[in-house]
């Protein structure tokens, strides 16, 4: 993985209906090996930003540039658990982009899928049904799928939501490895402490509130602006805990 990897948004404004942007003024750039936490309340525009970076949403204003290919890791709560595929099948989907439609996935890609599952600690569970795995294990399978995609830029949508401690540790270790390989990571989260772990933090609340290194950026003012009334300040310093009423049963249509 080399310096060709790059993730950048310049004055990006985007949304779902013309004239009603869901997210505006997003302006940041990340070079190879950088990881950004995308912090914000539900409906703050985290997923909207990812959609724009994936090219699913057109910019209404400004632009975004992704170099090195993107892999998207969705939230596992959105997955249908009665869907009869194995962990291996899901990881193998990462090879779809480079498999011509008339061919089956190549043997090398099958090996890559097995290797990716081993890397997230699921070597023994490749044949297990995806829906029968725990939330954390499913999240790891989805990360394995992104590994198979071998993209320069990884967009992870709330990868630690509803994930057990073992899985979280494993995922963090893999993400650190990926960063060391020079890949760019964007990790959306609503957990301020989690956000401190990464190189940069991007605070969103329908617009870009702040962008920078966590130590400088995560001030009480910025957090209050990001979370509004939902924020509870614990000890007067720039340590905050975002209080959420997020409902995992809620699915967008």
């Amino acid at each position, binding site marked *: 993985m080399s310096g060709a990897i790059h993730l950048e948004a310049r004055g990006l404004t985007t949304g779902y209906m013309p004239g009603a942007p869901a997210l505006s003024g997003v302006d940041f750039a990340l070079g190879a090996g950088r990881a950004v936490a995308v912090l914000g309340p539900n409906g703050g525009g985290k997923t909207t930003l*990812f959609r724009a970076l994936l090219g699913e949403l057109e910019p209404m204003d400004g632009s975004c540039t992704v170099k090195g290919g993107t892999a998207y890791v*969705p939230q596992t709560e*959105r997955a249908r658990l009665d869907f*009869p595929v194995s962990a*291996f*099948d*899901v990881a193998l*989907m990462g090879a779809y982009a480079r498999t011509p439609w008339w061919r089956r996935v190549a043997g090398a890609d099958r090996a890559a899928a097995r290797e990716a599952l081993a890397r997230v600690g699921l070597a023994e569970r490749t044949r297990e*049904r995806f829906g029968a795995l725990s939330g954390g294990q499913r999240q790891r399978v989805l990360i394995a799928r992104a590994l198979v995609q071998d993209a320069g830029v990884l967009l992870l*949508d709330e990868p630690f939501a509803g994930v057990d401690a073992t899985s979280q540790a494993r995922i963090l270790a893999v993400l650190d490895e990926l960063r060391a390989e020079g890949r760019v990571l964007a990790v959306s989260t609503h957990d301020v402490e989690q956000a401190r772990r990464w190189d940069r933090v991007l605070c969103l609340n329908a617009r870009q509130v702040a962008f920078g290194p966590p130590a400088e950026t995560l001030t009480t003012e910025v957090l209050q602006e990001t979370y509004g009334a939902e924020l509870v300040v614990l000890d007067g310093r720039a340590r905050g805990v975002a209080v959420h009423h997020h409902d995992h049963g809620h699915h967008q249509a």
Partner: protein
Amino acid sequence: MSSFPPASTPPHQAFEVDGRAWGHESGPGDVAARSPWQLFWRRFRRDRVAVAGLVFIAVVVLAAMLAPLIVQLVGARDPQEQSTEYLDSFGLPVGPGPDNLFGADPLGRDVFSRVLYGAGVSLQVAFLSTGLAALVGVTVGLLAGYHRGWADAVLSRAMDLTLAFPVLLLGIGLGSACSVGAGCAGGLVEPGLPLVVLIIALATWPSFARLVRGQVLSLRETQFVEAARALGASGARIVFREILPNLLGPIMVYATLLVPANILLEAALSFLGVGVQGRPTWGEMIAEATQVFDTAWWFMLFPGLALVLTVLAFNLVGDGLRDALDPRSDR
């Protein structure tokens, strides 16, 4: 955003991942695995009428393929053999008897072997024209539905234009224009069977295209397509591996219902004299029979019966297929 597995699972997607039946790769704790074909067959089998239709079609197909053998076995004459032996003193054909099971025609030919050989022509024309129409229609429908925009506008107008043509007039026109010499388009379309197949396919592809286009328009917005796109799947992969397999059911049903319509169209073209020449066909026999109907009823009855029963069998099978493939029917 795109999620996997999708929130709405179309029937095909539930059973196959990258061309493999999922049951083989899945681990323990799964519910009993049945492939979509097994499920379909279980439902179809319960429909006695459709199964009877299928059996009848199988008999007709076998009879058409083995026509020379059957004719030899029952000791019937060659379908082209004319003989005054089977015309009475007024020149009228003789009725059904041991020599001519279905009677003779005004040229003294054996109606039984002609009906038997005619099945081959009818089925060949119907299957080939339906296949060609399906190939063109499905391709055009996929293109128009998936790309939308100007491609859709151009292709949809082409469908409208083709549907606006009076089929029989077009057939008569093309039939007479192409049946002289080496055929049309520099010998590409030879007179005879290829020409009839082309005329019928030309008249019927737009309905296939419309069916497919409408389905593609809705399928391309589903979550499983969105998920494939987010994984970086190419347009061709999305169209052929995600969308097309979900359309096989409706395409199969429509093709099965189009076969009998095309058998009738072939008969109509033969009746009008622009069908397959030089081989016995049901339509041509019925046309000739109209002139001697009051004396030689058998000449119209047997090819007519063969036509009606074959068309009926295909329609019954088509209805059965539709019921068996429709998840909403409670059969």
